[in-house]
């Protein structure tokens, strides 16, 4: 049946197009990732039975006037080892049609949507992490009066190639007061509210489970001159999971976000904080994290350098409180410290800890109260993650550019990686990075990165963490098309001598216009790859990789 429809669409559409004046536009993008896996017992890398694994997708978008339609073909034959193995086979898991008419925006099929900062609903895709929880259904957007934006949606959320049993319904309204009332003042206000609910039948023989579970939030954004305040409060009603073991949790959940930023020319200050308690919201009650449809971002700096991101923070949606502050400052040009071009500084401090002191979801079974303010005063809480770092960026002269980072981090491996308490404890690291680029001549640049991580195990833990690392990266680029890179991560400080290994990796890339080709070869360390508050585990591997992406 599907094939017949597709066939008729392809057959008929050229004639429809020919009969119109403007033929519309077709665009798309394509990417394929091929990797080979060979056995390497020293790093616990396991060969794949298939030897090579491949992920690929093609997006096609058709636009004509107010109408847009699109589809995506995805192929996992079979999925790369860092992807969930339930991504298997081929399919067209994404297709939609959208039009706008008189201000009403209608989408049917698959769509992505975020309400506010995502605390109650975020349907998005991140191919790097292997996340795609698009909603399949209907979405309407309308702006009834100037400055008021309303969205309503209904759908089922996608996980792998299937759709959830739970039906998701949501509505969001955002009111931009200044736009609406045409205020001109220095202060502007934006108010918003969202409501999302999931319906799933109660098939539990022992417990009364709520079939309609709702999450709702209210948000406020105030801007005044260089200041910007954003606050959001989200609440989830009881959401017990299923199963018949006693200790069913009927506690409600809450999350509070408070961000304040200030900026002016040459200076920027940000303070972000959140308090989260039992706020994981999934499209099916009894499933795991692959079915999460909301988003609680991690409160830590997104580091670009490997050793700074070796131990990444991961949000604990079931209970955490945290703060993240940044100061961006540009020391002006032609001053003593600034030098000829100015120097950029970024000072960052982030910290996340538990909220077990007092009562919270983590400590009770069916009733709970939690005291957000108390949790911010972190005295008796378990540290999950802290990061204190300074980044200095300086252009020395026309040819040389320097980037230096120094950081001190604390990482609670037991909690953040879901291990048993006491196994690894809190790992302290001191990290230094020096990144120098030198312009040899027009279009030819060489860049060298040297990184060092000094690690200290937790004295009370039973296991040893990886220990100290050296890292070196050399990259040679020829504008506008080529890049060559080689890197080596050396775990010279590992407690176990047979684990003091070099992870060497080389890559060559060619870019032209909208096309990009990259070939790489080498060993990759097992690790955790995080984007936002979501992490995935990447197994160690040894082999070559090929990545081709292009758009048309």
């Amino acid at each position: 049946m599907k094939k017949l429809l597709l066939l008729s669409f392809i057959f008929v559409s050229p004639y429809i197009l020919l009969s119109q004046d403007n033929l519309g536009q077709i665009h798309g993008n394509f990417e394929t990732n091929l990797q080979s896996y060979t056995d390497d017992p020293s790093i616990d890398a396991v060969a794949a039975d298939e030897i090579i694994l491949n992920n690929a997708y093609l997006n096609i978008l058709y636009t004509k006037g107010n109408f847009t339609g699109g589809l995506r073909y995805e192929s996992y034959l079979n999925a790369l080892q860092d992807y969930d193995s339930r991504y298997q086979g081929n399919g067209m898991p994404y297709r939609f049609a959208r039009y706008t008419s008189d201000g009403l925006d209608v989408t049917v099929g698959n769509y992505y949507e975020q309400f506010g900062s995502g605390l109650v609903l975020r349907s998005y895709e991140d191919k790097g992490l292997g996340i795609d929880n698009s909603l399949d259904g209907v979405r309407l957007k309308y702006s009834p009066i100037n400055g008021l934006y309303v969205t309503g949606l209904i759908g089922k959320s996608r996980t792998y190639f299937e759709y959830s049993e739970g039906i998701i319904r949501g509505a969001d309204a955002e009111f931009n007061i200044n736009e609406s009332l045409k205020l001109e003042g220095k202060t502007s206000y934006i108010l918003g509210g969202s409501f999302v609910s999931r319906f799933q039948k109660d098939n539990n023989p022992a417990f009364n489970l709520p079939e309609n579970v709702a999450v709702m939030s209210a948000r406020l954004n105030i801007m005044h001159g260089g200041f910007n305040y954003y606050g959001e409060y989200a609440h989830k009603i009881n959401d017990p999971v299923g199963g018949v073991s006693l200790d069913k949790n009927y506690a409600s959940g809450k999350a509070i976000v408070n961000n304040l930023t200030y900026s002016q020319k040459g200076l920027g200050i940000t303070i972000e904080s959140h308090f989260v308690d039992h706020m994981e919201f999934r499209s099916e009650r009894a499933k795991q994290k692959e079915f999460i449809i909301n988003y609680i971002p991690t409160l830590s700096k997104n580091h670009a350098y490997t050793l700074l991101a070796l131990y990444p923070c991961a949000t604990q949606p079931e209970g955490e409180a945290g703060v993240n502050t940044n100061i961006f400052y540009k020391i002006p040009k032609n001053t003593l410290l600034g030098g000829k071009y100015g120097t950029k500084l970024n000072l960052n401090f982030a910290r996340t800890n538990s909220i077990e002191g007092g009562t919270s979801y983590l400590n009770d079974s069916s009733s709970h109260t939690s005291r957000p303010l108390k949790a911010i005063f972190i005295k008796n809480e378990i540290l999950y993650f802290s990061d204190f770092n300074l980044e200095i960026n300086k252009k020395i002269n026309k040819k040389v550019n320097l980037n230096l980072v120094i950081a001190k981090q604390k990482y609670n491996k037991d909690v953040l990686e879901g291990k048993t308490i006491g196994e690894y404890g809190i790992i302290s690291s001191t990290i230094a990075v020096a990144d120098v680029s030198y312009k040899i001549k027009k279009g030819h640049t060489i860049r060298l990165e040297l990184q060092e991580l000094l690690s200290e195990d937790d004295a009370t833990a039973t296991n040893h963490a990886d220990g100290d690392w050296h890292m070196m990266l050399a990259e040679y680029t020829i504008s506008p098309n080529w890049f060559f890179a080689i890197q080596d991560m050396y775990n010279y400080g590992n407690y176990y001598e047979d684990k003091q290994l070099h992870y060497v990796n080389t890559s060559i890339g060619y870019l032209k216009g909208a096309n990009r080709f990259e070939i790489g070869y080498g060993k990759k360390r097992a690790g955790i790859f995080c984007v936002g508050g979501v992490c995935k585990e990447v197994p160690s591997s040894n082999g070559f990789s090929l990545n081709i992406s292009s758009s048309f």
Partner: protein
Amino acid sequence: MTKKLILSVCAITFFTVSSFAQNRTLPSVKIKNLKGSLVDIQTIENDGNPIVISFWATWCKPCKKELNTIAEVYEEWQDDTGVKLIAISIDDSRSSSKVKPYVNSSGWEYEVYLDPNRDLARSLGVSTVPHTFLLDGDGNIVWEHRGYIEGDEDELLEQIEHISN
């Protein structure tokens, strides 16, 4: 066998016919400006002068390098060609609060917008950043480039000068 033949003939017809209409323009997608207002990307114009749209993120080193490098010569470019650079950040709620402070502290003069759920990026086929588009005075996308290697800004300037003349 015949089914496949018919399918391929139709597909070829379809793509050849539609490729006649390849004047690529921006789709109608809303993004947020730094004041929190929703703006449709199609409403952005530059008086018939070229527009550069660059997708970036605060966590993307090559993106920041590209935009900082161009920032040093932006005034010159504007004087010569009248070009306007629109920097669209795909930072999601983890880092979108840092966009305005970072931009201001770096002293950028670009128009900066936020696309936190990648709606515009997705509709333009942007999967990685940096990804830069060049639009001519009529709003047609005439050139695009992925990634940033030091020296790429020279090629971008060449392309801009080519269409502004």
